[in-house]
């Protein structure tokens, strides 16, 4: 099997779509009320060092994904256990995204279609994509990225015409605490979810810069999040915003351009479909790849289909209802700490130490 490569640009596009993926419709947390946009900015700043740390891990072992890194740093047994943790995280994330997907679609229009069918179609597309190779995912993402960008810019410009600036006042009415609180939520979902990319960016072309991908991905993805949040607050206003499960969708449905061109919310759904597909594919890839590494088999592709089917099975009963899904966001911010902060820190410290030690060892040998 020839080595697959993705370019820096493809990596960047993947990351941006991954970040805005499900957040686009679910919206960022409204803990900070009308100051949520401040939370987004704060979250980006908070996420920056963490993402640089992820980039560092990728950079330290070029061409090796997180599972190989763990294996190298911690040895066989501990490495496998830690890998399993990551596999679970990627798998669980995939489940959440798939469930998000089907809940959203069945809520907005496909009320008759069984959710199982929607989930199945999404997953089959994801499997098909990743089965082609990570290169296919990269090319597809770059292609879709332009469409998504055009739609989002168009939506934001149109939202601007409907914005009521009074919605942003009073600023910092509740003080800084809710802003920080919201910022952490946004940090854990979706910014720090990019830990998954430590398993993807190992496929970067030799010579590509993982820092650049993380850095730019964060800023562009975060910038889009900020624009969406601003638009949501500006158009909907705080109290109304918090009653909506899918604020962006409602926001866009309020936009009219003349009498003929209206109801653009379908575009939001389309963008969500495309981004969500990228996110599902990346999660599938990560899970299958991790499993393959744990069981010492080289081809992750053969494991894609069962992993995807298991994803769907779990997505069917992970939440009893849509309300439970949205409550989960509050749990998720704590649930994600070990995967997003603790484990990467541990890996990073050990990896640095190991590399330093082996380097000095090499020098002594000379």
């Amino acid at each position: 099997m020839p080595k697959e490569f993705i370019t820096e640009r493809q990596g960047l596009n993947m990351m941006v779509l991954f970040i805005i993926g499900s957040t686009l419709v679910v919206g960022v947390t409204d803990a900070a009320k009308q100051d949520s946009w401040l939370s987004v900015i704060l979250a980006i700043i908070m996420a920056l060092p963490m993402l640089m740390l992820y980039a560092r891990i990728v950079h330290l072992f070029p061409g090796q994904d997180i599972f190989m890194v763990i294996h190298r740093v911690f040895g066989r047994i501990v490495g496998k256990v830690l890998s399993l943790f990551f596999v679970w995280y990627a798998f669980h994330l995939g489940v959440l995204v798939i469930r998000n997907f089907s809940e959203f679609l069945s809520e907005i229009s496909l009320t008759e279609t069984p959710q199982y069918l929607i989930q199945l179609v999404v997953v089959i597309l994801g499997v098909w994509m990743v089965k082609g190779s990570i290169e296919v995912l990269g090319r597809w993402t770059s292609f879709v990225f332009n469409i998504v960008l055009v739609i989002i810019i168009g939506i934001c410009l149109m939202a601007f015409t409907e914005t009521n600036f009074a919605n942003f006042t009073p600023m910092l009415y509740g003080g800084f605490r809710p802003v920080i609180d919201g910022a952490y939520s946004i940090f854990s979902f979706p910014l720090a979810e990019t830990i998954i990319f430590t398993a993807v960016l190992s496929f970067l072309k030799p010579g590509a810069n993982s820092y650049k991908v993380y850095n730019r991905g964060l800023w562009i993805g975060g910038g889009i999040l900020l624009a969406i949040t601003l638009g949501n607050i500006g158009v909907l206003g705080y109290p109304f915003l918090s009653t909506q499960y899918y604020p962006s969708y409602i926001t866009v449905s309020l936009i009219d351009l003349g009498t003929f061109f209206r109801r653009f919310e379908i575009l939001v759904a389309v963008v969500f479909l495309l981004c969500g597909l990228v996110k599902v594919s990346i999660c599938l890839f990560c899970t299958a790849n991790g499993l393959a590494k744990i069981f010492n088999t080289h081809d992750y592709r053969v494991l894609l289909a069962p992993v995807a089917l298991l994803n769907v099975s779990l997505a069917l009963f992970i939440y009893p209802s849509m309300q439970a899904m949205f409550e989960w966001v509050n749990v998720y911010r704590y649930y994600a700490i070990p995967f997003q902060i603790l484990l990467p820190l541990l890996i990073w410290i050990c990896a640095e130490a190991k590399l330093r030690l082996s380097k000095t060892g090499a020098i002594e040998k000379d």
Partner: protein
Amino acid sequence: MILIMTLVYGLFLLLDFIPIYRGKNRKITWLYLSLFILSYSMTVLIGFGVNLPSPAPLIKSIITSLGIF
């Protein structure tokens, strides 16, 4: 519902599993089959209306027991 599920799983077996089975890698075959059967049994149970315990409340209770929440 169960019919659709079974159909889908059957199709996956036919299109995806047979080439893997022919690949004669026993480890992969077993791994594939175990994941496959696990997910199939889960979907069938759900299809029959059995309430499977979701991991979400479990995780939630672990986190609350840690006292952060």
